[in-house]
């Protein structure tokens, strides 16, 4: 190991971004005037100076190998003087100054399997998490579901217009790594069985009091099993939230038959027109069906299509639903409204309709 003899340095922080900025950005930093969308996936920003920056955005699977990163580096050298960036939704953006290089770049990216798009009123790359690739509490896979979904929805990334941006997200458990709770459509892994307690490991792996107090419903009680300190779960009080698993690995929830996903709609984070909103439950449960999760893909596609056909221009999913009302949404999407859709957690009452302001179906 060549570095081991050197003085160990710490706390140097990340490299300063300036060294990675192309000259056109350095010169026009903070002095951009406006932008235009030239074609799907291609933005041009014009500076006060009149200089222009062309950004070509391509999808990545986020789970990227050194192979594809090196490929992007090569493409950057060939087309954008070696400059590129990633976006907050895991797309890659090549930063060009020569507009003539746009089409050749798009062609090469396409040939390598990286579609260009995701700009404007489109579906962009879904935000997602680890899933069965890396996380212990995942109730579903992440990369797999997202791949299956986007194979079907790719046209909405590369061109087909939607009324507005449509943000997809996936999280594999209720910890919800990512902004899943504020997405136009979110797919969320769910457990539906009470935790299985490993009475052998629990004393060493977990603090019993922390574990007990982690449960929002008070379903966990300290107890002793075979004379050893452990916990028990009151089944009727458990809502499978995995809070206990988060603090105590000896309380696993993963279950091949019961795990699956739920689907949530109508969240957003931007302040554009409407204030940020949480996503709301649309479908309480769909099964895990790898490798292509057909039920999930169908459900999401169905939602996208109905939204695409009915929302007005600039109307995000949640704004559209708010305008037509939830009863109409359930009617139009043919989804069943169940008791699971009615909130029954802490602030439930505040979601009840305390007026006559609804449309009679």
């Amino acid at each position, binding site marked *: *190991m060549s570095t*081991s003899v050197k003085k*160990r340095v*710490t*706390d*140097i922080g*990340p*490299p300063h971004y300036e060294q*990675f*900025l192309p000259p056109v950005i350095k010169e026009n930093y*903070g002095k*951009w005037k*406006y932008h*235009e969308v030239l074609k799907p996936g291609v933005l041009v*920003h014009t500076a006060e100076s009149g200089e222009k920056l062309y950004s070509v955005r391509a*999808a990545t*699977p986020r*789970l990227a*190998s*050194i*192979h*594809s990163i090196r490929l*992007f*580096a*090569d493409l*950057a050298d060939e087309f954008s003087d*070696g*400059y*590129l*960036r*990633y*976006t*907050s939704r895991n797309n*890659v953006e090549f930063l060009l100054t020569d507009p003539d290089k746009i089409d050749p770049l798009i062609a090469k990216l396409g040939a390598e399997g990286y579609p260009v798009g995701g700009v404007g009123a489109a579906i962009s790359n879904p*935000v997602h998490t680890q899933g*069965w*690739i890396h*996380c212990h*509490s995942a109730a579903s896979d992440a990369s*797999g579901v997202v791949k299956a979904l986007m*194979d079907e929805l790719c046209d909405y*990334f590369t061109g087909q217009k939607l009324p507005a941006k449509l943000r997809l997200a996936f999280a594999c458990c*209720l910890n*919800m790594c*990512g902004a899943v709770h*504020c997405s136009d459509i979110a797919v969320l892994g769910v457990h539906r069985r009470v935790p299985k307690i490993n009475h052998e490991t629990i004393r060493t792996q977990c603090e019993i009091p*922390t574990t007990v107090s*982690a449960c929002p419903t008070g379903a966990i009680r300290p107890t002793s099993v075979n004379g050893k300190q452990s916990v028990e779960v009151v089944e009727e009080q458990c809502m499978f*939230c995995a809070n206990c698993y988060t603090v105590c690995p000896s309380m696993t929830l*993963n*279950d091949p038959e019961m*795990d699956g996903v739920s689907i949530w709609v109508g969240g957003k*984070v*931007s*302040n*554009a027109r409407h204030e940020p909103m949480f996503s709301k439950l649309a479908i309480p449960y769909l099964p895990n069906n*790898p490798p*292509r999760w057909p039920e999930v893909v169908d459900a999401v596609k169905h939602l996208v299509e109905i939204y695409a056909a009915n929302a007005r221009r*600039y109307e995000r999913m949640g704004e559209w639903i708010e305008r037509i009302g939830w009863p109409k949404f359930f009617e139009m999407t043919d989804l069943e409204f169940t008791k699971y859709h009615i909130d029954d957690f*802490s602030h439930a009452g505040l979601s009840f309709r305390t007026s006559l302001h609804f449309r009679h179906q």
Partner: protein
Amino acid sequence: MSQKERKTPLVDELEKGPWPSFVKEIKSVDNPKAKDLLGVLERSYQDKIGHWKHGGLVGVMGYGGGVIGRYNDLPDEYPNVAEFHTLRVNQPSGWFYTSDVLRKLCDIWEEHGSGITNMHGSTGDIIFLGCSTEELEPTFAALTELGFDLGGSGSCMRTPSCCAGMARCEWACYDTMGLTHDLTMEYQDELHRPPFPYKFKFKMAGCPNDCVASVARADLSIIGTWRDEIQIDQEAVREYANSSELNVLEDVVERCPTGCMRYNGQLEIDDENCVKCMHCINVMPKALAPGKERGATILIGSKAPIIGGALLSSVLVPFLEMEPPYEDLKELIEAIWDLWAEHGKNRERVGEFIQRVGLGNFCDEIGLDVAPEMVIQPRTNPYIFYEMDTADY
């Protein structure tokens, strides 16, 4: 068995289709870790269950964060991923790279790990996915030599991230990348050595479009805004009006959430009633721009659902100027941290802490004046904790 070519018919299915395939990515690496990873995934697709588990604490020397320990629960079958930790590598602000630096990162990760990454993790880090315990230190050494460092995990400040801001956007009301780098450097200690009851995240967005979803997933959300008039180029408005792509009345005026715009040949905005939502600017970027008196709104407390339900960040400071060296902001951050570090419960995010102690009391303690902008509306319940020395004004 782990080294021989396994059949992975289920995951292979995901090599097909127009969307870039993560399976292809994994297969593109010629590396026993990557091969075992694919095997484990195939196994999960058969079993419909994950095969990872928590384990003992791992990390690099002197750091309390930056590494997530992960172990496979079938180590005999997949020995190359028996230890499969992740390193969170602090990205450069705005995720800007040169081909050169990316190649060097790849070289390091090819030498020391699985060759598989996430570009990027949801918090913003470069994720090096799959490192053995033994390789943690050497990887770290190589990274620091290249000028990189680890990001946060555990009860640390987490790696701040931001939108491209002034680097590539005409709407940035402050320098998101500058601030992100500044705070990251200023708080290296908090980033690397857990000083808090729980994690603390920063996200910086240059304008209310919030392109880093800051309001949804940052304990402190710093979102650019302005407080004077939207800048209007009337000539450019008329060009939009005459073009076929936009109907200024339907697409702009009628979509304004406060109805504070009028148009008949001339666009009038009643800026006093504008809530800086960005919509009109978004759809007419050549004609409109945020005002000149720029700064940021500081919001506090968003997080995922665990344990009391998800929170969005809420207004803490309605408007703050954002100029280096960001003294007011840092004073505020440190006051918040001091209070929360002392009084927050274990695993209590700052947003939950505020809900427990009351936003009014929280402001009192950190020495911040309360403002009506903090709330959608004043309280509706009559349960007021009158304090005797102040209640009789």
